[in-house]
C-alpha cells in the first residue's frame, strides 16, 4: 500500500488479525464482560437472570447505555466541532415523543417508527442547525435553548393533550411484546448494548475520517479551515444532524424502556445532564462522556438510595469534587496517567 510516498509491507491476514486483537484487547475484554454481565450478576446474586437483582441491574445498565449514547452525541458537537448547544434535549425528547406518538396513536410498526425517528431527527436537527449556526458562541447557545424551550412548552400545551398527554406526558406507550422490557429485559439489554456499540463505532469512524479532521480544524481555527476551502456551515450542520440522530434514537429507546415520554425529557435539565456527563467524562474523547454518563447515572442511583431526600444536594458536591479532581475529565486523567506510565513522549519538541 502506498501512502504519501511511504511503501508499507503487506501483512498476512493472520498477522493483521493478531495485531488487531492486540491493539483492541482492552476493548474486546470490555465487550465480552458487557455481553456476559447479566449472567455474571445472576451468578453473583444467585438469582435467575430475568428476575430480582440481576433484572433490576440490567434496567440500570440499559439506562446507562442510553445516556452514554446521548452524552456521546453531545460530545460530537461540543468536543469535536466546538458547538455549545443548550438545546440538545430537543433531539432526545423529540425522539421519545415521535416514537411514542407513532406507536400509541398510529399503531405504527416498530421499525417504521424507528425510521421515522431518524427522519424526524435529521429534519429537526437540520432545521435547528440551519437557524442556529448563523451565529456563534453564546448566541448559538441561546438560539438552541430558545428552540428547545419552544418544544418543551409545546409538549406541555393542553391543546395537544390528546397526542402528547400535556404536562402528564405520554403514558403507556405500547411496546411490541417481543421487545417489551417488562417481559424481556435481557433482550432489551442486548438491543441497547448493540445500539451503544454501533453508535460508538459509527461516531469513532466519523471523527477519524476526513470529515472528522475538518471538524477538528474548524474547532481549532475556523479561519484557517475556511481558507483551505471548507464551508464551516456545511460541516457543522453535518455534525448537528449526526449528533441529533444519535440523541433522538437514544431518546426513542428511553421511551420504549419507560413506556412514556414526559416534558422533562425536553427540558433544559436534560441538556445540562448531557453537558455534565461530557465535562465529567472528558470533552472531545467520545469514550469519556460515555464513562461520565455511567458514573453519574450509577452514582446518582447510589446517592439516592443512601441519602434519601438529601441526595441531590450531596450529588452536586460529588460532581464538584469530580470536576476539581479531574479537570480534563475521566478520559483526560486516564490519558495523562498512561502517558506518564509510558515515559517521555516519542514526539517531544525538537
Amino acid at each position, binding site marked *: 500500500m*502506498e*501512502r*504519501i*510516498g*511511504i511503501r508499507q509491507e503487506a501483512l498476512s491476514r493472520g498477522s493483521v488479525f493478531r495485531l488487531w486483537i492486540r491493539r483492541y484487547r482492552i476493548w474486546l475484554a470490555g465487550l465480552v464482560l458487557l455481553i456476559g454481565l447479566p449472567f455474571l450478576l445472576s451468578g453473583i446474586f444467585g438469582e435467575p437472570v430475568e428476575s430480582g437483582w440481576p433484572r433490576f441491574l440490567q434496567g440500570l445498565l440499559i439506562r446507562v447505555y442510553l445516556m452514554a449514547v446521548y452524552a456521546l452525541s453531545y460530545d460530537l458537537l461540543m468536543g469535536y466541532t466546538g458547538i455549545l448547544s443548550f438545546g440538545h434535549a430537543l433531539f432526545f425528547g423529540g425522539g421519545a415523543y415521535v416514537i411514542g406518538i407513532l406507536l400509541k396513536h398510529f399503531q405504527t410498526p416498530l421499525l417504521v417508527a424507528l425510521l421515522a425517528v431518524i427522519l424526524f431527527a435529521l429534519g429537526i436537527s437540520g432545521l435547528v442547525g440551519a437557524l442556529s449556526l448563523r451565529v456563534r458562541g453564546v448566541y448559538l447557545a441561546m438560539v438552541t435553548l430558545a428552540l428547545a424551550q419552544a418544544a418543551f412548552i409545546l409538549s406541555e400545551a393542553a391543546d395537544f393533550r390528546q397526542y402528547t398527554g400535556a404536562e402528564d406526558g405520554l403514558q403507556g406507550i405500547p411496546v411490541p411484546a417481543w421487545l417489551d422490557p417488562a417481559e424481556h429485559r435481557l433482550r432489551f439489554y442486548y438491543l441497547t448494548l448493540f445500539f451503544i456499540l454501533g453508535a460508538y463505532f459509527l461516531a469513532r469512524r466519523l471523527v477519524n475520517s*476526513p470529515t472528522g*479532521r*475538518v471538524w*477538528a*480544524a474548524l474547532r*481549532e*481555527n475556523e*479561519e*484557517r*479551515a*475556511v*481558507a*483551505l*476551502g*471548507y*464551508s*464551516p456551515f456545511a460541516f457543522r450542520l453535518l455534525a448537528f444532524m449526526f449528533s441529533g440522530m444519535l440523541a433522538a434514537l437514544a431518546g426513542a429507546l428511553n421511551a420504549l424502556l419507560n413506556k412514556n415520554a414526559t416534558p422533562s425529557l425536553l427540558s433544559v435539565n436534560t441538556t445540562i445532564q448531557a453537558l455534565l456527563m461530557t465535562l465529567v467524562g472528558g470533552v472531545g474523547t467520545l469514550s469519556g462522556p460515555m464513562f461520565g454518563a455511567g458514573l453519574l447515572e450509577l452514582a446518582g442511583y447510589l446517592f439516592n438510595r443512601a441519602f434519601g431526600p438529601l441526595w441531590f444536594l450531596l450529588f452536586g458536591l460529588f460532581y464538584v469534587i469530580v470536576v476539581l479532581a479531574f479537570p480534563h475529565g475521566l478520559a483526560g486523567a486516564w490519558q495523562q496517567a498512561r502517558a506518564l506510565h509510558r515515559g517521555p513522549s516519542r*514526539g*517531544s*519538541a*525538537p
Partner: protein
Amino acid sequence: MDAVLELRDVHTFIGSFHILKGVSFAMRAGSLTALLGRNGAGKTTTLRTIMGLWPAAQGSIRFLGEELRGRPTHEIAALGIGYVPEHRAIFRGLTVEENLKLAERRRGDLARRAEWIFSLFPDLKAALKKPAGLLSGGQQQMLAIARALVPENRLLLIDEPSEGLAPMLVEHVMAAIHRLREEVPILLVEQNLHAIRHLADHYILMEDGRVVRSGPMAELLGNREWLQRYLGVTA
C-alpha cells in the same frame, strides 16, 4: 495583459477604520510579485481581502476573469487560491500528515504531489506522524506552505514567511519559494527585502492603504530614494 489577479479600486474597512483606500494592481501569470510596504501599509489586509476574510466594501477583485468580491472564503479557496497566512497558521492539534491531508481538494491530491512537496521540504516527511504543534518554528512555516501546495492551486498568497525565523531557516524557506515560482504564480508579502531581492520578478509598493508604485523588481532595487522613502532601507 495576461493578468492572473486584478484588483481595481478596492476599499476595505475593519470596523470603522478605512484600511484599504482604493487598491489597484494587476498580477501577471508566471511571476512572483512582492507586496511591499512599511508596517500598517495594508499588505496583510490586501491578502485577507482577496481571500474574502475581510470583505471589500467597494471595488473589484478578479481572479482569472472571475469576480471574487462577495464570495465566501471557502469558495474563493476552491477556485484555486492557496493562502498561507502569517504566524504559521497550522493546526497544532493535528499531525503533520493530517494537516496535509486536510488541504486535499480531491481524494489523492496528497499522494500525487507528495514526492514534489517532500523534495521541497524533506523535514516534513520524517515528521509525518508528529503533532504539528511540536514542530520547530521553521518546520511549522514549511508545513504551512506545503499545505498550500497539496491541491493544484493556480495562485499562492503567502504572508510574511520569514517572520520570526532564524536566518538559516529563512534561506531554506525562500529557496523553496524560489522553486515554487516555476510552478505557480505567487503574491508574496514580505518585510525582509534582503530575503526576496533576487526572488521577486515584480514589486507592488503600498503606503497608507494605497498602491504607490509597481514595476519590475530591478527598478525598485536600483532606486535608493524609493527604498529609503517607502521601506526605510538602504540598498
